[in-house]
C-alpha cells in the first residue's frame, strides 16, 4: 500500500498540533467562549450606559475604552464592582465621575469571569482569560 503526501502529513500535523499545544489550545477555545458570552452579558447589562463601543457618555458616564482606571485595576476588584456596583466617585482619564453604578446582583461567578474577560480584552488591557475559579474566589472576598 502506498500513501500519498496528504495521507501522511495530515495525521502528522494533527499529532503535533494536539500534543505540543494542547493546553494552550484549550485556553484559546475557552477564551473565545468567554468573549462571546461576555459580549452578550455586556450588551444586556452594561451597554445602555457605557455604550456598545465602550465610549461612555460625555462626562456623565465614564468610558471603558482606553480607560486608565481599568488598566490599573485588578481583575478581582473589577469582578466585585460589576457584581456589587459602585457608589464612590472615581477618576477616569483625569475626569471625576460620581454617578453611582448599579450592581448586577444575580451575576454568577462564571458570568462575572466572562464579563471581566470581555471588558479587559476588548478595550485595551489584553490580559487574556480571567477564569471562573479566580472569580469564585474573588467574589467571596469582596468588601
Amino acid at each position, binding site marked *: 500500500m502506498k500513501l500519498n503526501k496528504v495521507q501522511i502529513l495530515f495525521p502528522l500535523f494533527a499529532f503535533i498540533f494536539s500534543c505540543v499545544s494542547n493546553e494552550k489550545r484549550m485556553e484559546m477555545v475557552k477564551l473565545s467562549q468567554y468573549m462571546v458570552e461576555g459580549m452578550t452579558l455586556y450588551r444586556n447589562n452594561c451597554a445602555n450606559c457605557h455604550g456598545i463601543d465602550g465610549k461612555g457618555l*460625555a462626562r456623565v458616564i465614564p468610558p471603558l475604552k482606553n480607560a486608565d482606571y481599568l488598566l490599573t485595576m485588578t481583575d478581582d476588584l473589577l469582578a466585585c464592582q460589576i457584581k456589587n456596583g459602585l457608589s464612590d466617585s472615581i477618576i477616569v482619564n483625569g475626569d471625576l465621575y460620581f454617578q453611582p453604578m448599579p450592581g448586577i446582583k444575580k451575576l454568577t461567578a462564571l458570568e462575572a469571569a466572562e464579563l471581566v474577560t470581555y471588558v479587559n480584552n476588548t478595550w485595551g488591557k489584553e490580559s487574556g482569560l480571567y477564569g471562573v475559579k479566580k472569580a469564585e474566589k474573588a467574589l467571596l472576598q469582596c468588601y
Partner: protein
Amino acid sequence: MRTLFLALCSIIFFSCTEQEKRLPILGNFDVNVSESNGENDYDTIYHSIMDFEFVNQDSLMVSNKTFENKIYVSDFFFTSCPTICPIMKGQMLRLYEEFESNQEVAFLSHTIDPEYDTVALLKDYAERLGVSSEKWHFVTGDKQEIFKIAQLSYMSVAANDANAPGGYIHSGRFLLVDKKRHIRGAYDGTSPEDVDQLISDMYVLLKEYETE
C-alpha cells in the same frame, strides 16, 4: 407621435413638481362649529402643548414663551436612571450637535425625579454633557405637573413604579413640537435609526417656516 411627446413631457414635468413633504399634526383634535352668514364654519382645534412653567438648570423660569418661534424636541428622564436614559441622552446629544448653530431649534428635557434632580444637579449634568443652557433646557418642577404634562400634552408615560429599576417608568420617546405647540412627530429616543428620521423630519419642519 406628437401627443406621445407631449404626454411624456407632462409626465416628466409633474414628477418634478412633486408636492413637498409635510409632517402630520399628531394627537386628538376637535372641530368647532360656528355659524356665520347662515353657513357653518368648521374650525379644527389641534392637540397642542398646555401652558407650563418649570425651572431650568440656571434657575431660570422656562415656559411656552421660551420656545416662541422655535421648534423643539422634548423628552422625560432622570439623571440617576440606570436603563434607557444614557442612550437617550447620547442620541439627544447627536441632535444637539446637528442643530447647534440653528437658533430656531431648542431642546427640553424634563426630570421625572425632581426630589433627587435638583437645579444644581441638572446644571452639573448639562455641563458634563457639554451643552449650552440657552439651547438645551433641563427642567424640574412640581412632580405632578411634570407627570401631567407628560401624559396629557406629550402623550408620554412617566410615573412612579417601585418595581422599575431606578423607581420610575417612563417612555424613551422624543417628541417634535412645532412653533404653534403642535406635536409633529414621535420617535424612539433609544433607536439611532429613529433619531436619523427625526433629524430629517426637523429639516422638513424648518422648511415650513422658510416658505411662510
